[in-house]
């Protein structure tokens, strides 16, 4: 055995991780650093990017009302989408978990499967449903619920509905994972001691799956805040979010330094929200179990 261990250390871990490390330094660290530096440069419509350094781009984003609206819209939408995903995804995961096979695995496939289908395709489906003569308006008018077509395309309601559809599988899977650790005996114990179904749900099930809901919320929030395809297709030019704004600065206006500043702010906001959320939750659970 001693020989075996001696042999294995012939290939040190640093050598094994060297390819990945090199690739990441060259292709992740360097580009990110360059974008960070670029965000301090200035831009001129005629001469292009100038290699001087100032906070002008950040000040422009922080002071301009136009950008305030975009950032507020993006994070407001992320909050609403996350809440709806939690309210729909968590009960659905619970219901799926109580089903018997083959229904259980069939419906799990139906809920998780869309994750493998391109976001462009899923968003196209909603664009078709939202149209003036689309299925939603046809149904609503057929039932006599509305007199004229409801405008959903190019509205934030439409974008939110489609984003919930794109991201709710992450919530289901996250809650599903924590339900697998739940001991069904605890539920039966609650019921046999005379608690109502609702009390068992509230006092036994919900507290145990809460970590799943919280980690699912984090994924949904981060992905909504940086979503591009769905708001670009369903929101159009007028309903801009941070990601589509950065895209426009890069590929239409060609003001790369300003686009870089917007991208860095998005990244910073995401990282700050994710880490502080994690910290609050860890603290909460440390208190509960400590």
């Amino acid at each position, binding site marked *: 055995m001693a020989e*075996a261990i001696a042999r294995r250390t012939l290939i040190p871990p640093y050598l094994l991780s060297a390819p990945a490390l090199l690739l990441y330094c060259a292709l992740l660290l360097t580009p990110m650093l360059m974008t960070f530096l670029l965000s301090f440069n200035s831009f001129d419509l005629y001469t292009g990017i100038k290699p001087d350094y100032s906070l002008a781009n950040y000040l422009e984003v922080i002071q301009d009302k136009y950008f305030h609206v975009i950032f507020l819209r993006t994070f407001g939408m992320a909050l609403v989408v996350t809440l709806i995903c939690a309210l729909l995804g968590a009960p659905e995961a619970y*219901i799926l978990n*109580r089903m018997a096979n083959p229904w259980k695995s069939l419906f799990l496939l139906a809920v998780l*499967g869309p*994750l493998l*289908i*391109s976001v462009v395709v899923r968003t196209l489906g909603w664009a078709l449903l939202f149209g003036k003569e689309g299925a939603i308006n046809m149904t609503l008018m057929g039932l006599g619920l509305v007199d004229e077509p409801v405008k959903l395309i190019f509205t934030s309601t439409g974008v939110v509905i489609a984003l919930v559809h794109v991201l709710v599988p992450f919530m289901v899977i996250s809650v599903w994972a924590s339900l697998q650790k739940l001991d069904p005996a605890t539920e039966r114990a609650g019921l046999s001691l005379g608690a109502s179904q609702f009390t068992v749900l509230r006092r036994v099930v919900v507290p145990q799956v809460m970590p799943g809901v919280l980690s699912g919320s984090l994924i949904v929030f981060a992905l909504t805040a940086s979503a591009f395809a769905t708001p670009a297709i369903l929101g159009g030019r007028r309903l801009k979010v941070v990601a589509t704004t950065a895209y426009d600065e890069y590929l239409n206006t060609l003001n790369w330094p300003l686009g870089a500043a917007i991208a860095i702010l998005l990244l910073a906001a995401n990282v700050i929200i994710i880490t502080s959320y994690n910290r609050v939750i860890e603290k909460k659970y440390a208190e509960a179990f400590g």
Partner: protein
Amino acid sequence: MSKNGPIALIFHTAFIVFMLAPLVVVCLVAFTSKGYISMPTEGFSLRWFRAILENPDFIDAFLMSLYLAIVSASIALAISVPASLAIARHRFPGRAAFTAFFLSPLMIPHVVLGVSFLRFFTEVGLSGTFVGLALSHVIIIMPYALRLVLASVTGLSRDAESAAVSLGASNWTVFRRITLPLIVPGIAGGWVLAFITSFDELTMTVFVASPSTITLPVRMYNHITETIDPLIASLSAALIFVTVIFMVILDRLYGLDKLLVGRGT
């Protein structure tokens, strides 16, 4: 286990309808016989599926996406395997930092990666090239590949390896004849997940792809922002059919829930 009540079943039905409605609508519109977006009320027609084949733009973009996904998934796996062995088998200073670093692309919004790659490739002269595109995809799909390979290496018993070493096998022989065959399921799962992630990627690729390296999602996105017609619906329907077949195979092999935990778009 207690059964779901009627309210739960109504909720469940509504949820499933919500999940499937947009996909079903795309598939129905794809079979229309008319020249505009409409339901196939006058019988099913394959007209718009034939139209895909007459559209070399989409075919080229599809082949590019296929080629790109195969190349980048293979590179990502080739790099993930040694990195996973290092992380799972050794205790060394910086191990936790390495792991966090290798998984970090999951935390970065794709639009931020896109603008960073665009700037970087322009500066180093790789802008618009296939090499640049493939390398940028490797970064995006590495975390998925790494996580699955890492999981299979971590769960591995080392008895067979120790036996081979004590019988005089070299490091390389042990890896090739014992370790590698044992982690093939993890490698295959990681490759497929990396392949799908690369094939579907839009937000980052929009910045990096040039007219000669345009991928299918970017081509479709550009088409949709200009016009929504039955052609794009039939193309999407074709993609849905292929994905469903893929999905059923994956579900049989691994269980979709295990494969997808924590996947990002």
